[in-house]
């Protein structure tokens, strides 16, 4: 379990990283925290010829909250994001991160790396999709922003080009009347998730649901939104969010992908997630582990 040989590039700056990417294309991989990439390299499931290390690249380290949202640079570890002063304004992100692996994994792993990897059990692609985040892609050709919906593809794949680097992810700040929920079950803390649900619900002052995003991950399927469930929840939310109905709608929508156990688990987790969203936009409830 030793990695195959490669040429190592220590990226001095983002510009340097994309230059190397431009030169080597799909023969190169970006190394940020390495907590997903290095196990695969140790097992020789992947063997890139070139590795571009951005873990200490200064202009990719930034974490910044502004009026519009929270921007996290490609080299920012989970640990630094959790310790960031304004993270309290984005409790669902903090909650999602608390489910990622074990503490030593969170000390090295990165938020952007998780999204770029698009592991079907990934907490960060799920929460990014629920929040409608944007990823900023950089290449020698320039930069572009892509909505997370258009970035994530099937499990372990994204729509990124071979010469592009995910420079940062931007989580929008939610307006008044927005609630969030994130609920995950893993057999033990730090294990890969058995199933998880992330949601965002917009409500009018009156309580009328005006829109929502519902995402499931793990449970045997990729990270994905459930548009049918979202429509049902919104349509039937004229008198306010019905948590039980929302959970049922999520489970029904998941039917095609999942077996009985995972459907039931999704319904259970969705009830928890929508409960969080209903109780408070910044509600914080304890983790679900059983």
């Amino acid at each position: 379990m030793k990695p195959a040989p490669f040429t190592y590039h220590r990226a001095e700056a983002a510009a340097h990283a994309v230059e190397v990417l431009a030169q080597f294309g799909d023969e190169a991989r970006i190394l940020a925290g390495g907590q997903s990439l290095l196990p695969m390299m140790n097992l020789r499931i992947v063997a890139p010829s070139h590795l571009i290390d951005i873990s200490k690249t200064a202009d990719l380290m930034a974490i910044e909250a502004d009026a519009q949202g929270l921007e996290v640079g490609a080299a920012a570890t989970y640990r630094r994001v959790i310790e960031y002063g304004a993270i309290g304004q984005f409790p669902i992100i903090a909650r999602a991160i608390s489910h990622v692996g074990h503490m030593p994994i969170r000390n090295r792993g990165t938020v952007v790396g998780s999204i770029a990897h698009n592991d079907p059990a990934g907490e960060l692609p799920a929460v990014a999709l629920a929040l409608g985040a944007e990823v900023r892609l950089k290449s020698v050709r320039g930069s572009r922003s892509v909505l997370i919906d258009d970035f994530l593809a099937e499990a372990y794949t994204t729509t990124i080009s071979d010469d592009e680097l995910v420079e940062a992810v931007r989580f929008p700040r939610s307006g008044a009347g927005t609630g969030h929920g994130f609920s995950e079950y893993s057999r033990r803390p730090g294990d890969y998730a058995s199933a998880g649900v992330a949601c965002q619900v917009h409500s009018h002052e009156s309580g009328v649901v005006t829109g929502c995003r519902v995402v499931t991950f793990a449970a045997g399927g990729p990270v994905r939104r459930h548009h049918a469930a979202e429509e049902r929840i919104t349509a039937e939310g004229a008198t306010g969010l019905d948590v039980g109905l929302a959970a049922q709608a999520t489970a029904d929508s998941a039917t095609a992908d999942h077996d009985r156990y995972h459907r039931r688990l999704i319904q259970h987790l969705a009830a928890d997630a929508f409960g969080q969203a209903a109780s408070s936009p910044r509600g914080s409830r304890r983790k679900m582990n059983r």
Partner: protein
Amino acid sequence: MTSRTTPVVGTRLARLEDERLLRGRGRFVADLEPAHTTHAAFVRSPVPHGRILNVGLDAVRDDPRVIAVLGHTDLPHELTNDSGPRQPLLAGGEVTYVGQPIAVVMASNRYVAEDLTEQVPVDIEPLAAVTEIDESLQGGTTVHAGEETNVVLINDSWPAQLDEAIASAHLVVEAEYRTERQTAMPMETRGVLAVPDPNGGGLTLHTGTQMPHILRDALAALLELPQTAVRIVTPDVGGAFGVKLAVYPEDLVVALAARRLQRPVKWICDRYEAFTSDYQCRGSSYQAIAAFERDGTWTGLGVELTCPAGAFFAVPWSGALVETFIGSTSLPGPYRIGHYGYRCRGVLTNTTPTSAYRATGGPAATWITESLLDRAARRLGIDRAELRRRNMITASEIPFATHGGLEIDTGTHLEALETALDHIGFDAWEKRRAAAASEGRHIGLGIASYVAPTAAGVMGPDPSVAIPFDSTTVRIEPSGDATILAGVSSQGQGLETTLAQIAADELGVAVNRITVRAGDTLMCPYSGGTHGSRAGVLGGAATKTAAAAVATKMRAIAAHLLEASPDDIDLAAGRATVRGVPSAAITLDEIAMRSHLQAQSLPAGMEPGLESTNRYLNHRYYTTANGCHVAVVQLFEATGAFKVLEYVVVQDGGVIINPSIVEGQVRGGVAQGVGSVFLEAVDYDRQGALLTSSLIHYLLPREWDVVPQMRIVHIQSPSEHPGGMRGIGEAGLHAAVAALANAVEDATGHEIDRVPIRPEQIADLVSNEGRHHLVGEQLE
């Protein structure tokens, strides 16, 4: 011995091993790196069964990075298996399991060695594979092409009276139980460092084997070397649990390669390799039938055991042998059963060979016996504790010969049961369960009484399967410091500490004057190894006896110098004193000095020096340890999760050398029971591909899975062996599977017939979905 100081045996002495291990100065095989070491990596079979068309070793032979590459034609050696086909060290014509070694590459480091193995083209024509025991038993497809059968073991004992007991019974309970395949997975993987030794043309093999002498003998035979030319050294070992018992192909390939290269060759199994190449365990089926009278009297038990050997019958002990042997021995437990029978089948499968895993065969046996009792109790309408009481061996029946062949010499079975039930509050259990149910919580309680066969001894007139003795040398150096050369070696159990405790009491010296060395065939006397709950019992007895002989000699010397009778000499606190005359004393250091450096002052005719070797032969077929575990678990409907709420262990393991070490063995064993019942399964698909090849997929118990505070109660009935130990290494796991699985059955009201119980199943059982057996009508 009549020491006046407090004995060290029985105290919670801090372990002597810990200082070096805590500093990071433990030395495991991977930590050893002599000059010019070459690193090996194996080319392994990617398929469960196939005909090898080509192994392209020539593709790398001329690569300048290759130090050597060896295939079947270079090393055509085979292991001599007791049953079934002989096992090539490197596969030649045919591969028969995923992970089977095909070739080995040596390079300057492991990175490069792995690069090179990837460059060896391997062309294999796939053949039909058999991975399931039922399919194997039926025949049709054979595991090895050209063989007529997959059956490699038959052992039947089924008296006609058993059939009569079943025919005339008031109640017959029938059930089929299954254990899925597991693997022991110690945190340190296997590893071998072979260093050629110019003296005698042999070599030294550094490896974490549990049986240094057995491995030495096998290696010497294979290499056609005198046993004196082969030395096995076990450094610190990071856990074994049975997986480091077998003589593995890799051990021998590395040794042969080192001989050929005349350079050190090192192979450290990586975790991925461990999943395919470590010998596995369990994966068995048990067809059970039990007969009871109306009053609960247990009149008959019969079990058909079918256990997999994997692709080869492992050397020295296949899982098919030990699972069925220990299983059929353990099944009757502590119960008076009218008639008992078993039919054992061992079958080959196109999977990694099987061998031992802690208490091998015992966990399943205890589960079956205790589960049958629970099911009978429900059908008979008798309280399950009461049914056990009625059938349990009492103190007045001791010694009691079980139908499994054990001679039980402890009468503490009922005491253990009652104590465990008291601790858990069994009388209030049904109320507690009802209260929980009213809150929507699903809780269950499981009881498991067991008798564990330990410390195998002489098994009859024929040569034993296991070495029936063990050996220790105790030597006092001229300084008065003691060296103990133990046959039995530690894989983490703390034998350096426990053997020192035993010797300290005999010699009357402080533990810090004693150094224990073990696991070196050159230094240490012949040993059967550390397994089967034997090291403490037999190694401890040998240590005690050897130390007592040295103490006797020290008393004689002291008596001579102090002009007293040897019978009046006490050895304690580093001094020999004449009883009743405190002023008449001599230090043991002086005795040691005189016995070496002033031998002329010894009693006339006495041999100089202070040294004794004892080889303690165990005449008893098996010693026994017994006890009772009670578990309380909670199950969760939506997630299928489990939580062990409470766990009580009452055990009689004989005399306890160090309670902390014993409790460590128990806790570790119970944790492995949690893994066995809820987490751990080696999964193959129907085509024989391994699905669980990482610790992400094969779940080892984590801190979260175990009960936070286990209650452990000790009963100590001394055995007949010097020291009085009964063996405690395996008892925890022996009973834990039964206690936990029965607790799940109790919680769900559904019969559990397969372990591990997966979350999907728990969710179904708790929510009453899916198709499952319902338990007897007595239970709502």
